[in-house]
């Protein structure tokens, strides 16, 4: 499967990393701001609760104080009905918050014979009126406002109640027992009570702003709702029955906490009408009541949620923007690369003129494209040169091959060359070092009985040497046909060669003429290594060296002619320095001595055998080392005027 491109990989990696980083940042920041919000909410709720508690407490405390003062006054007050009524009235007058106040006596405590006596002043139609409580139908001794204070022997706040007489307003009573000084000391005499309505409290609480959907509620001593945004709850349900109705066990726990007079903070997952919410609660210790502040969680966390939503929005937006940017930017890198790749493929296929895309971006990719172009141009040039050179070389090679073939064809190659001439046994071999070499040999009959044979070595190698060799051979043939002595032949040849010899090439030559009737051998030597004579009766002998200059160097040289006599069975072995200077792998030369020894073993051998023996010996000596010079040898055996061959 093809790997996803650079652009895709880059985009995927960067985007994945960015997504992770973003999530971490947003998540952390959400958590932190959430915690901060919750803390603020806690504090806020506590503050609201505290403020509410203080305001309620302040008002109720005032009432309690007044009532306690009256109770204290009654200790020594005169038992006068008018006085008591007046006291009650005045209490109302000076305390607009109190709805009604009464002084209820224990049985017989006011005066003998009177079971009930409770003068009571209250507000009615904007005036203060007075009445007396206590009858068979109204046994106040069994009522909470009296009984609680009396039995507990201390001032108490009753539970809130609805007072039909007071226009069905929600009321609460504060009752304080009072005693009177008698002859027997302080005796319990009755209960002073003051009732106040709680309408002001309900109104105050309904006006408290808690977020948008939050609210404040107040529980009485046993968890009864005395203030709540839902009027059906007031005096109708306790927090425990509400928990029972809603099936929220944790609400019961909250109730227990609040009823126990604790302060704190509790979380709820689902309250009716408000959903998830936090409740901050604080007690009103004197009355045993408790204030709860309900904060909707969504509003509490609204700030954090909103911030998080916005952050997430920005993050997601930025994410997509980043994705687009990455794709665009990586596109600017990969598109030129793709173009270059296609172009390179075109060039690789052999289309050297394939047009490369123009990438003027001026950055690394542009540089790459420019280098690519330069490479393409240089490649073209190089290949053109190479092609031309190769073509030229091939031309030269083929011409050299042709030259070699031509050159070889001008040397006599057919053996035996004169089958009908029984006086001679001739054999020659030439192994050129390079394809065209400078060694030469030749043999021909000058006259029917004057057999000329020669060998030579042109200085240098290659085509120039070959040309010179061809010219020399031809020249010698022409000159030798004038029946001159070998020395004169060489002198003439030298003059002709030296005449127009700009390149200063020269050639070593050994030339001999044998009289086949007599065996007389006349010879001349122009700087060539002296051949060997192999006597039938004896062994090899060196011919004398002449120390005369090579041909073609300088015109006007004189060459001397030497003579010796060959007996039937004697042979002359002519060779070039390629034989004696053949090197083995260590660079040691085959040398004249070894040639001498090798030829010594060819006693009485045929010419062909002689050349073959020496060839094999030289090859064996070379051991595969490269042949540095032409190896040429010519063996001529004199068989006598009659020869060992039959005539005819």
């Amino acid at each position, binding site marked *: 499967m093809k790997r996803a491109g650079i652009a895709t990989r880059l985009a995927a990696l960067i985007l994945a990393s960015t997504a992770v980083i973003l999530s971490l940042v947003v998540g952390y920041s959400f958590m932190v701001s959430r915690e901060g919000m919750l803390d603020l909410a806690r504090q806020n709720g506590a503050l609201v609760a505290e403020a509410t508690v203080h305001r309620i407490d302040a008002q109720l405390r005032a009432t309690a104080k007044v009532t306690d003062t009256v109770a204290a006054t009654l200790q020594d007050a005169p038992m006068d009905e008018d006085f008591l009524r007046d006291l009650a009235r005045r209490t109302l007058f000076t305390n607009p918050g109190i709805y009604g106040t009464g002084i209820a006596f224990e049985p017989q405590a006011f005066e003998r014979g009177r079971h009930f006596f409770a003068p009571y002043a209250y507000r009615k139609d904007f005036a203060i009126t007075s009445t007396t409580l206590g009858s068979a139908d109204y*046994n106040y*001794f*069994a*009522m*909470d406002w009296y*009984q*609680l204070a009396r*039995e*507990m022997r201390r001032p*108490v706040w*009753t*539970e809130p109640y609805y007072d039909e007489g007071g226009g*069905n307003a929600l009321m609460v009573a504060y009752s304080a027992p009072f005693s009177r000084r008698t002859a027997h000391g302080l005796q319990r005499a009755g209960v002073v009570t003051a009732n106040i309505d709680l309408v002001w409290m309900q109104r105050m609480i309904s006006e408290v702003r808690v977020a948008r959907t939050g609210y404040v509620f107040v529980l009485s*001593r*046993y*968890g009864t709702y005395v203030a709540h945004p839902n009027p059906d709850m007031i*005096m*109708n*349900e*306790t927090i*425990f*029955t*509400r928990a*029972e*109705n809603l099936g929220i066990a944790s609400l*019961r726990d909250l*109730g*227990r906490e609040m*009823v126990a007079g604790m302060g704190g903070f509790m979380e709820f997952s689902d309250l009716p009408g408000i959903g998830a919410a936090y409740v901050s609660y604080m007690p009103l210790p004197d009355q045993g009541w408790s204030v709860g502040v309900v904060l909707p969680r969504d509003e509490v966390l609204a700030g954090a949620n909103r911030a998080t939503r916005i952050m997430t929005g920005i993050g997601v937006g930025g994410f997509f923007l980043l994705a687009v940017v990455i794709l665009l930017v990586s596109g600017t890198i990969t598109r030129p690369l793709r173009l270059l790749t296609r172009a390179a493929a075109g060039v690789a296929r052999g289309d050297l003129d394939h047009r490369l895309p123009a990438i003027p971006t001026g950055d690394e990719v542009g540089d790459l494209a420019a280098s690519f172009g330069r490479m393409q141009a240089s490649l073209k040039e190089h290949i053109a040169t190479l092609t031309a050179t190769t073509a030229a070389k091939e031309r030269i090679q083929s011409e050299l091959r042709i030259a070699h073939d031509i050159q070889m064809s001008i040397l006599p190659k057919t053996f035996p060359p004169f089958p009908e001439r029984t006086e001679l046994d001739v054999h020659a071999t030439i192994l050129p070092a390079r394809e065209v070499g400078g060694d030469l040999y030749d043999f021909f009959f000058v006259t029917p009985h004057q057999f000329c044979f020669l060998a030579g070595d042109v200085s240098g190698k290659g085509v120039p040497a070959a040309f010179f060799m061809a010219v020399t051979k031809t020249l010698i043939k022409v000159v030798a046909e004038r029946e001159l002595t070998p020395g004169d032949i060489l002198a003439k040849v030298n003059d002709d060669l030296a005449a127009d010899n700009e390149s200063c090439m020269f050639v070593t030559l050994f030339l001999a003429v044998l009289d086949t009737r007599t065996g007389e051998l006349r010879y001349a030597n122009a700087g060539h290594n002296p051949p060997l004579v192999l006597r039938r009766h004896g062994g090899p002998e060196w011919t004398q060296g002449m120390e005369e200059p090579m041909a073609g160097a300088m015109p006007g040289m004189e060459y001397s002619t030497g003579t010796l006599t060959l007996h039937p069975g004697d042979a002359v072995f002519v060779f070039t320095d390629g034989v004696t200077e053949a090197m083995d792998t260590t660079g040691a030369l085959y040398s004249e001595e070894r040639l001498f020894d090798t030829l010594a073993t060819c006693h009485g051998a045929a010419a062909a055998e002689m050349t073959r023996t020496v060839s094999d010996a030289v090859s064996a000596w070379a051991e595969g080392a490269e042949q540095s010079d032409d190896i040429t040898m010519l063996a001529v055996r004199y068989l006598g005027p009659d020869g060992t061959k039959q005539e005819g």
Partner: protein
Amino acid sequence: MPRLAAAFLLVLVLATTCQAAPARLVLHWLPQAQFAGYLVAEEKGFYAKRGVDLTIVPGGPDVNSTHHLAEGKAEFATMFLSTAIARSPETDLVHIGQVVHQSALMLVTRKASDIRTLQDLNGRRVGMWGKDFQIQPKALFQRLGIRVQVVEQAPSMDLFMRSGLDAVSAMWYNEYHTLMSYGLDPDDMVTFFFRDLDLNFPEDGLYCLRATWQRDPATARAVVEGSMEGWAYAFAHPEEALDMVIRRMKEYRVKANRAHQRWMLARMRDIILAGEPRPDPELTRSDYERTAAVLVEQGFAATAPGYADFVMDARPDAAKTDPLPGTGGHP
């Protein structure tokens, strides 16, 4: 002229015989689930279909159901058996149907007060209501030979909650749940049920003046049967019954707490059925005579009328296994 008069007279006669008999049933306290059966029967028309045009008159602190009967403000009334026995000499009441067969009265203490047995109540402050509700406790303490400080208790449980009382009287279907609604778990309370202490007085029942019964026993029986059907329906459809009850309570501006009413209805079912599959209006002789004996012994009633004089057999002499009409027909 005579023809017109005769026609008018005929219509009048027809009207009086064919139209439903109007009647009023006064309850012995404010509307609440304690009276669910009657309220359901009235709304569902169980009285109307028996030919009784019944109106329910709610009771309350200003209403004495006996006095209403005596003053002709109602034809039928509910009240406790003990109350009826005590009032019967002066009012000539007769019993026409028993609703509650099991006493719901109980004593409650808080675990924190260390009272575990009835003997532990000796010398302690025990709250009690009015005379009607003091019979069973006083009989109990007398039997056990213990003396308690009797404190008249207010309708609220405040003094008990503030530990001003060691034990308090409560009705199982009402004040006991109030204590729970004040945050007391059942684990926090120790309870003594009078039904388990051989003082199992039948309570709510249906009564009328003897004259009312004698004049029109059919209507009385219809009222009893309709009431029984109403109770059976309320037990079978509690939430619907609660809806009706709470609506009525709101009409009369009585505090209506659904959880409290639900508990009340469930307990009424326990004490009305008392293990039987359907409401049974019969008051057995043994139950009557047992109760009457204690009342007289405690001095609550001077005398008690004889069973046959007092208890009207609401059903004609028929096999007691016959199903009541309208109650499902299951034995």
